[in-house]
């Protein structure tokens, strides 16, 4: 699974990296972010690509698991 580590980055970088990954990879993508609003932006990005996702809280932020296209 492709992983995007956007922890510690500030907006809009997490969304930009997610967008890049979803365009490049039709498979599952896992995105790690630090802040709740970044999680929400990543979820919106996934939704905009018509992808399903599941988000969970991690020790240092959130993980958004985006399903294959």
């Amino acid at each position: 699974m492709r992983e995007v580590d956007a922890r510690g980055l500030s907006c809009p970088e997490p969304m930009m990296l997610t967008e890049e990954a979803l365009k490049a990879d039709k498979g599952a993508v896992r995105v790690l972010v630090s802040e709740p609003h970044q999680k929400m932006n990543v979820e919106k990005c996934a939704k905009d690509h018509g992808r399903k996702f599941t988000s969970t809280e991690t020790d240092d932020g959130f993980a958004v698991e985006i399903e294959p296209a």
Partner: protein
Amino acid sequence: MEKEIHLTQFAKHGGCAAKIGPDTLSKVLGRLPKFSDPNLLVGFETSDDAAVYKINDDVAVIQTLDFFTPVVDDPYTFGQVAATNALSDVYAMGGEPKIALNIVCFPENLDPDILGEILRGGADKVREAGAVLVGGHSIQDDVPKYGLSVMGMVHPDKIYKNFGCRKGDVLILTKQLGSGIINTAVKAQMASAESEREAIRVMTTLNKKAKETVQNFTIHACTDVTGFGLLGHCSEMASASDAVIELHVKDIAWMHGAKEYAQMGLIPGGAYRNQRHAAALLDTGDVEEVYVDLVSDPQTSGGLLLAVPESEAGEVLRALERADLGTEVSVVGRVAESGAGAGIRLVQK
């Protein structure tokens, strides 16, 4: 070859999105001592745009101050945006700006010509406002910041407060919304040239003409829409007026691309903060999620939000149209109830 400087790269948050959140602010400000003076007509208790102090029965002075980090890369444009935004607080109180002072933070290692351009942009806007720039203060800082302290004047009977709206009032906004989202899209290099141009045009348009156009009509309440977004500023107006405000999301003028970028996840953190702050008052009904994000979007140098009695609304709108402000004027909603608690209802017709 000289390295191109992107001013926005210095700032984590740009423009009014850099504001400290309303939750944090109200906590800290609540601990400050209360000041009172019979001549202080508007203080900070009502979260208004500026302070107003009465000199005599005909003259009151308006005092305000506003500065922020770069919201655009071009120094001259940044100066224009920051000055337009700072001057706006005077217009939002119904006044005319008279004297302005520069507030500057600038890194020692950056080309001083950049600072020169920022100040030139600010000075041009002060001149356009008909005020005078008389000096300022500058310090060294890693992140560039710019703004103005502005003194304005108003007749004590003609002050626009951010409260006082009544049931039936029509809410008119004099600029289209979406600058926070567009600026985020620009930072992500995903904004169209058209959207970027529109945001810059809106952010550099003084609220002078809008204020002058409406000054002979009845205005029950007025504020300018900035960092707290339309939602946050309506919440303040609703709370202070004890009114329920209904926002008609389909009638609101949005900048080109704003809806699309919001759906892509290009939403500034400040929008989520504004939503959280208004949550207790907010009824989102069955409007699409994207509209909740759009109304929460922090604006930089936004338009005047006017609560106008229904009987005069048509005339006010026609006058604003004739004035050709250079921005899009729209009816964003109405005051649904007053005197029975505060609230904000989103409606998607």
